């Protein structure tokens, strides 16, 4: 356990150094993409609120929607922090060789790498929440923030294991990039990244609750921003645990089969 924790911390530190080697690009792209998403969503909803002459839609005021889009934009970044290729690149280029030779747990090492940017984004989210409380009267409370943060972290672990199943398909498939992007698009849509789920027609709303995605994005944000939610913290956390176990088993199955396919010469 202690050894794994050390590996995690080492991987985290190495990745952190890489991020800070190009810190201007990292922060500039983060700020630009988040700001663009929030501004466009604000303009879109402002025009809809003005046209319909309402101050609230589906329980959201315009201010609440800005906070929602801001939080979900950052949470989405936390979940997909490392681009596609974190594992598949090692398989394609033959870099997996060194990890197989080193006395380290490959999965833990990759999890540490994955979490680096996630934790940086999470720190920005926490600071922003203070700003929302002061300037937008966000009605936040300490308990809901703590619960929201725990859920965002467990969402990240869940999504890491889901992504790693797809990445490991690289043992068989020639390119898995498009498959990963497809899952990310579906996750964004079903998780309420484009529009809060309460605006969805009932049939689609009910259907997407059979997938893990609403619990990865939408419900953690609801708790974080202290909005009324149909699921409690413990229910969402239990759902996360369920999916983590399912994806972990899936990942182990794929890894155990795939590693015998690995030639180590790259493509």
């Amino acid at each position, binding site marked *: 356990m202690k050894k794994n924790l050390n590996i995690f911390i080492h991987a985290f530190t190495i990745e952190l150094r890489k991020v800070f080697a*190009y810190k201007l*690009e990292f922060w500039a792209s983060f700020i*630009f993409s988040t700001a663009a998403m929030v501004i*466009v969503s604000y303009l879109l909803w402002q*025009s809809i609120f003005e*046209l319909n002459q309402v101050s609230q839609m589906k329980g959201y005021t315009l201010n609440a929607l800005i906070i929602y889009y801001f939080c979900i934009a950052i949470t989405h970044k936390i979940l997909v922090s490392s681009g596609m290729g974190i594992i598949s690149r090692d398989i394609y280029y033959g870099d997996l060789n060194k990890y197989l030779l080193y006395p380290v747990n490959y999965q833990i090492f990759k999890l540490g790498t994955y979490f680096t940017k996630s934790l940086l984004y999470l720190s920005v989210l926490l600071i922003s929440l203070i700003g929302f409380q002061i300037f937008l009267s966000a009605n936040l409370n300490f308990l809901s923030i703590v619960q929201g943060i725990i859920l965002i972290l467990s969402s990240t672990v869940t999504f890491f294991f889901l992504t790693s199943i797809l990445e490991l398909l690289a043992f068989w498939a020639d*390119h*898995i990039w498009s*498959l990963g992007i497809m899952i990310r698009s579906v996750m964004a849509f079903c998780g309420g990244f484009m*529009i809060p789920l309460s605006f969805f027609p009932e049939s689609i709303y009910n259907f997407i609750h059979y997938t893990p995605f609403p619990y990865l994005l939408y419900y953690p944000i609801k708790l974080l921003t202290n909005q009324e939610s149909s699921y409690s913290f413990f229910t969402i956390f239990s759902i996360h645990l369920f999916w983590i176990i399912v994806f972990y088993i899936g990942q182990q199955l794929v890894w155990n089969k795939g590693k015998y396919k690995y030639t180590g010469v790259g493509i």
Partner: protein
Amino acid sequence: MRYFRLYLHFIRFSFTKALQFRFDFTFRIFMDLVFHTLNLVFFRILFNHTTLIGDWNQSQVTLFVTSFILFDGIYMTVFATNAWWLPEHINKGELDYYLTKPVSPLFFFSFKEFAANSLMNLFFGIAIFSWALTQLEFSFHFFQLLLYILLIINGAFLYFAMQLLMYLPTFWTQSPRGFDMLLHGLDPILKYPISIQKYLMRTVFTFLLPLNIVLSYPAKIFFNEAPIKGVLIILVCTTLFWLFISWLWRSGIRQYSSASS
């Protein structure tokens, strides 16, 4: 003519290459289909709660969204793969390959990779855009359609120029991806109708970083909101933008120090 023949060779070679990676070939088609379908569903959901977005109605917004599919098909097929590799070519010294051939390096680099798998999505884009045209409440002339095609192709060239603008600083900074995440981050501005933008934003993204010219203005041709004079200005602006990119490219090449620069 020589360049045209060369381009045909690029296409033939790209098809051969794409068919070697069959899994990726299939999944890239599915990926684009899923991505665009979700985008269409998103706007459909929005119109369950409103009748207008800005001052555009549902059929106008649908035409705009399908224009994006068409644009994306053109851009992904012709330009995207080429643009993507530029920072890596610069940093690893692989640009030598393009500079040593008896052909314009910018042309060679810009058109070498033709994404055969995205071509299928271009066909999908044409089909769904044609459907969206039939949903419009007002009629249009064939001339408007021709102008639109001209402007949407122009939009793809312009977006490629903007993408290069983000990558070319790599000649000086040697950063792994240039500033491409900035443009990528501004994607929502490209994907949402111009009708929601206020004056300042509209000005910035029309004249400074002309994302509005890529998609929204071509769509406006059908709504009789874009006069002919405007079309000429768009074409002149694109030419000026490309002249600037060519100058930046030449300056970058002078800065380039080959392997492991």
